[in-house]
C-alpha cells in the first residue's frame, strides 16, 4: 500500500496487478470511512480510496471548490494511476461525483456502485440549509452543526452505539472547518442529473440503507428507475440493506461487503467466461 499525492489530493493505493476498485466518500467524512471495505476486498482487487479535495489530508490553500472540480479530480487520479477502466463505489457525495463522471466519460468505468445517493441537485430549501450550516460553522458552531448531523447519518437503532458513533466522529475530526464549509458549497454547485438522460454502458449496483434519513426510499427508487431506463447493459441491481442508515457501510459492514463482492465477482466471472 502506498499514499500518493495527485494535484493536492491524497490517494491510498493498495496496488497489485488486479482489477482496480476506487472508493469515494461522503460528506463530511474522509477516505478512511472505507477501511472495512478496502480491507475486505484488497486481496481480490487493486483497491484505491482517497480524501476528496478539501477533506482529510487533501487540504490545500485552494478551498474554493465546485462539484465539477471534484469530478475532474476523479479523472486526474485514475489517469495518474494509469488506470484505463475502473470499478467504482461512491456514497452520497461520492455518488454525485461518480454519476456526473459517468455522464462525462462512461468509457472509463467498469462498474458503478451508488450508495445512498440521488439524482436531483439542491432546491431552495437545501441551498438555504447548507447556507445556514456554513454560517453556523464560520461563527464557531461546528460542534452544534455536527451534533445535529451525526444522528442523521445512522439508523435510530445505532444512535446509542458508542463504537459506531466514535468511529464516525474520529473520521469527521480529520476535517477542518474550512474543509467542511467548502464541501457544503461544492455540494450546492452540482447539476441536476435527472434533467437529461445518457446511456449507461456498465453494470450498476444501487445500495441503500433502509433507515436512511438523508435520502428517502422515493429518491432511491427514482434513481433506480432512471438507471434502469438508461442502462445499455441491463445489469442493474437495486438492493436495500436492512436496519441501517446513511452510513450503511459502517453500520452493516458485513452485509455491505458481501453484496458489493457478489456484484463485482459476477461482473468479473462473466467477463472471464466470455
Amino acid at each position, binding site marked *: 500500500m502506498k499514499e500518493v499525492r495527485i494535484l493536492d489530493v491524497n490517494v491510498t493505493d493498495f496496488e497489485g496487478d488486479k482489477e482496480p476498485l476506487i472508493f469515494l466518500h461522503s460528506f463530511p467524512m474522509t477516505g478512511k470511512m472505507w477501511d472495512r471495505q478496502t480491507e475486505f476486498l484488497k486481496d481480490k482487487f487493486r483497491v484505491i480510496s482517497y480524501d476528496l479535495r478539501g477533506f482529510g489530508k487533501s487540504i490545500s490553500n485552494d*478551498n*474554493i471548490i465546485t*462539484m465539477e472540480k471534484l469530478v475532474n479530480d476523479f479523472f486526474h487520479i485514475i489517469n495518474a494511476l494509469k488506470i484505463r477502466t475502473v470499478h467504482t463505489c461512491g456514497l452520497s457525495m461520492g455518488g454525485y461525483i461518480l454519476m456526473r463522471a459517468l455522464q462525462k466519460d462512461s468509457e472509463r468505468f467498469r462498474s458503478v456502485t451508488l450508495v445512498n445517493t440521488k439524482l436531483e441537485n439542491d432546491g431552495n430549501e437545501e*441551498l438555504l440549509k447548507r447556507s445556514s450550516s*456554513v454560517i453556523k460553522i*464560520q461563527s464557531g458552531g461546528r460542534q452544534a452543526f455536527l451534533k445535529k448531523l451525526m444522528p442523521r447519518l445512522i439508523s435510530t437503532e445505532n444512535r446509542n452505539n458508542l463504537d459506531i458513533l466514535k468511529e464516525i466522529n474520529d473520521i469527521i475530526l480529520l476535517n477542518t472547518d474550512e474543509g467542511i464549509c467548502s464541501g457544503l*458549497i461544492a455540494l*450546492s454547485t452540482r447539476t441536476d442529473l435527472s434533467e437529461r438522460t445518457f446511456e449507461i454502458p456498465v453494470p450498476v449496483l444501487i445500495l441503500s440503507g433502509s433507515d436512511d434519513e438523508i435520502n428517502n426510499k422515493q429518491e432511491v427508487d427514482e434513481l433506480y428507475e432512471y438507471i434502469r431506463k438508461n442502462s445499455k447493459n441491463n445489469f442493474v441491481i437495486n438492493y436495500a440493506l436492512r436496519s441501517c442508515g446513511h452510513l450503511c457501510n459502517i453500520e452493516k459492514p458485513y452485509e455491505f461487503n458481501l453484496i458489493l463482492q457478489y456484484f463485482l465477482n459476477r461482473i468479473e466471472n462473466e467477463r472471464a467466461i466470455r
Partner: protein
Amino acid sequence: MHKMINGISVYDNKNSKPPLLFVHAFPLNSDMWQPQIKYFDKDYRIISYDVRGLGKSISEDNLFFMENFADDLIDIIRNLNLEYVNAVGLSMGGYIIQRTLVKSPGLFRTITLADTKGEKDTDEALLARSEVVNAIRRGDRNSFVTGFIKKLISDINYNKPGLVNTLEKIISENSDKGICGAVNVLATRTTTLRQLQSLNLPSLILVGEEDILTPLNCSEQLAKVLSNSEMHIIKNSGHLSNIENPEEFNNLLEIFLKKHNGK
C-alpha cells in the same frame, strides 16, 4: 467617507436625505457606481459598498453562500441605522437585494433591480461558473476577464475607447480568491421569484436592450411577479446599463425615486 462594518468597506456621504444604497455587479466593486454617486449626491444619502471578498472588503477564506451576502447587507443597514432604504442593485447586486428583501422586507422603501433575474442557475450556468473558477485558479485570469468584459457590455460600447480600461481597472482591484468565492455564491443562489410574488414594494426594473447575460425576458419575469413594478429598457446598453448609458439610467431612477420619496 469610508468606514469598515464587519469587514465590509462602506461608503456613506452621510447627509440627512432619504437613503439610497447601491449594490454592485460581479466581478466588479463599488467603483462601478461612480456615475450614480455623483448624480444623486445632493438629494440622497448615498451608501455603496464592496461585496465581501471583493474590492476592499477582504475575506480570509472566501467561502460563502448568497445568504452571507444578504446578511452583510442587513448588517450595514442596521449599523448605519437606515430606515426605508431605496436599494439599487445590478446583476449580482440585484440577486443580493432580492434575497435580502425576501428575508427582511421591512428594511426597504423601494428597490431597483437592473440587469438581473429571479431564477437560480441552470445546469449550463453551473458548469460555466465552475470553468471560471478553474480558469482563474490555474492562472488564466486575464483571458477570463477579457472574455467576460466582452459579454458585460454591448459591442458598440466595447469598441468605444475608455470603457474597457475602466472595467479592467475596477476588476484588477479584486483578488483571484474573491472572484472565485463570488462565482460560487452566484452558482448556489436560490430562486426568488415565488417569494417576491407576495410583496407590494415599489420596484423599478431596468435592463439594457442588448444585455446578453440577463436578457429582457429575465426582467420581464421579475416585472411580472413584482406586482407594484415598472420596467424600462435602456437603449445603447448591454448588461452594465448604469455605466453604458448613465444619462438614461439616472433619469429613470430619479423619476422613480422622486415618485416614492415624497418629492
